[in-house]
């Protein structure tokens, strides 16, 4: 047998084996569905859902369809993920700076915190925040308050809501400009790396939007708060739990990235006459960011996947709404799980495609 024939034979064997397994599964599924007289199809997505989603950022009521519920739950998932990504990055950076500070007290505290957080389950932390911290908060009338506009009580966290016009356009405009600039950075001919310039620009845009918007603060009227947004305890617990857990991993990644830049780089930059700030921003940080970006992206993807733990405390994210409520009501096991898994697969495949493009871009620069 020639090599080519052998290759064909092996691959044919693999295809036949895999095909046999898939066919056997398919046969069983058809058999099982027939037995329970269930039909397969995604038509149910266009029928009336008839259930409430207790927390929603976009419009929702019981007359909306199952398909629309996926959108509402998806927004809840992405909202939690965005909050956690911002907070965990900040907390992770703070822990990393503590570990790099050289002060024995700060270094020791950060080490202990990181080790304890990393070696306890994420779910335990989330449920701890939910049941042991947020459920024992005072009732509405004795809310803990920060200033006159942020209130925390057993019903959740009340924060001011942006209203008025213009701010949403500034946010959208900034994001679009930053994205265009990020893609066409080289053509713009700016010498400073885009990762140093663009995040502050984004931040500036958000601050500007914050000043443009009218803030509608929550105020206690009678038995309830009027105005503002209520972040339910489920969301607060999920955010706190995943933020704390992930920040320990991010801290180690940031520390490794900064330590990973060779000491000679800083020394060479200084001896070439660059200032301390120039050394930091043009020599150290760009190289640290190159080490940082791939593992940080994978942490961010973990955050998005971890939001499914919201199902443990009934935060209405995709898994909770679909694999629990929709499945219970419609009984469409295969369709529901396909949708849930499909959403997460799509997010991950997009992210890894972006990561590969980024890696190719770095290799092209040939550093």
């Amino acid at each position, binding site marked *: 047998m020639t090599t080519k024939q052998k290759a064909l034979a092996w691959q044919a064997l693999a295809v036949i084996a895999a095909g046999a397994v898939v066919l056997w599964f398919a046969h069983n599924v058809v058999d099982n569905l027939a037995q329970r007289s269930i039909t397969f199809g995604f038509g149910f997505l266009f029928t009336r859902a008839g259930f409430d989603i207790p927390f929603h950022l976009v419009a929702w009521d019981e007359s909306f369809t199952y398909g629309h519920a996926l959108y509402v739950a998806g927004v809840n998932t992405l909202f939690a993920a965005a909050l956690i990504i911002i907070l965990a990055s900040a907390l992770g950076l703070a822990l990393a700076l503590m570990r790099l500070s*050289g*002060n024995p007290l700060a270094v020791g505290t950060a080490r202990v915190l990181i080790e304890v957080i990393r070696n306890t*389950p994420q*779910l335990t932390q989330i449920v701890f925040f939910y*049941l042991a911290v947020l459920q024992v908060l005072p009732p509405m009338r004795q809310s803990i308050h920060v200033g006159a506009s942020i209130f925390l009580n057993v019903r959740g966290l009340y924060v001011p809501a942006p209203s008025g016009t213009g701010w949403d356009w500034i946010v959208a405009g900034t994001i679009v400009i930053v994205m265009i600039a990020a893609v066409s950075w080289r053509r713009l001919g700016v010498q400073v790396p885009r990762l140093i310039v663009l995040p502050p620009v984004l931040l500036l845009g958000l601050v500007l939007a914050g000043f443009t918007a009218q803030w509608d603060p929550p105020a206690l009227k009678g038995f309830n708060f009027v105005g503002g947004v209520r972040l339910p305890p489920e969301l607060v617990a999920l955010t706190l739990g995943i933020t704390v857990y992930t920040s320990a991993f991010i801290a180690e990644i940031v520390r490794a990235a900064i330590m990973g830049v060779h000491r000679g780089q800083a020394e060479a930059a200084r001896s070439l006459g660059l200032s301390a700030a120039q050394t930091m921003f043009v020599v150290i940080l760009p190289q640290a960011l190159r080490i940082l970006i791939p593992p940080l992206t994978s942490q961010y993807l973990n955050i998005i996947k971890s939001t499914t*733990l919201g199902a443990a405390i009934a935060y209405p994210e995709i*898994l909770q709404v679909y694999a629990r409520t929709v499945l219970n009501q419609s009984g469409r*096991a295969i369709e529901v799980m396909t949708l849930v898994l499909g959403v997460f697969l799509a997010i991950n495949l997009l992210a890894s495609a972006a990561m590969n493009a980024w890696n190719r871009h770095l290799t092209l620069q040939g550093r």
Partner: protein
Amino acid sequence: MRHPLVRALFGTKLNAAITLLMLAAFALVLPPLFRWAIGTAVWNAPNRAGCEAADTGACWAFIRARLALFFYGIYPVDQRWRVDAGLVVLVVIGTGALFARRHRGLWLLALAVLIPVIDGILLVGGIFGLELVPTGQWGGLMLNVVISFVALGGSIPLGIALAFGRRSKYPVIRYGSIAMIEFWRGVPLLAVLFMGLILLPLFLPNGVNIDNLVRALVVLTLFTSAYMAEIVRGGLQGVQSGQPEAALALGMHTAQVQLLVVLPQALRLSIPGFINIAVDLFKDTTLVSIVGLFDLMGVVNQSLKDTAWTGLAAEGYTFAALVFFFACLIISLGGSVLERHFAIAPGSTKH
């Protein structure tokens, strides 16, 4: 300012500020924490009301009262010696595999083959006059250990196969492996557990009833094997190309080269990755409590609804967190012993 410690704490203005800030934070957090956990804690009380009557701190009496439940679940009380015996077998063989001077390979083989057989018989029963204990009665920390062990053990061979598959020169096998790996790595573990719970029964012939624990084990093993495959792939890439070339030049078959020369070296390089997976997996076994199994998390959740001890969440989850912390510490320490043993001594070419 001579003493190095004084210099490290107050050397510069910034450093002094950090030191003072840290001390202030300690003063704010540690005394109340200490008072709650130890100072005013209650160790003996018949129920929650008794705790509150005695003092204001943590009600550790709750943990003491439920300790057996946290470790064994509702495993029949008169049969719990079997769990203990199983643990002894695990510890003896595990210690042997880590510290034995000679025949380390045999100890590792025992870990992979003897433990599943002996502990399987002990825990399940039904033969040798042992009473059958259905998995519905398994629970507590024991369940976390069982799930981790089975999923880890199953995912090692599967992961190795997938890693080789991903490097295969046959496109069908390569892309098949890539699809398999990327699917499991792209979906959240909890969604995977739901999938096992909901879809697995549909995929099997009509009338086959599949145990809830087995459903979780199947999907957890597949899920872990995808991460294992990536670790092993990293190990395979780390083996110097001179090794397979030399083996081929000595006249070995391709299969011999891969299995006897490349794989052992790759596995040695993969040990740190294995340890990370083991720690992550052990922590993630808590997720089975969401799909209706009563692992340590599940039992704590359940105990908080007990009318005598209702609502002692802080105590319950602090205890669970501590148990997991020390268990993960043991896994990490064991891993570093293994890593040191299999490390190549610097400057030597033979092992």
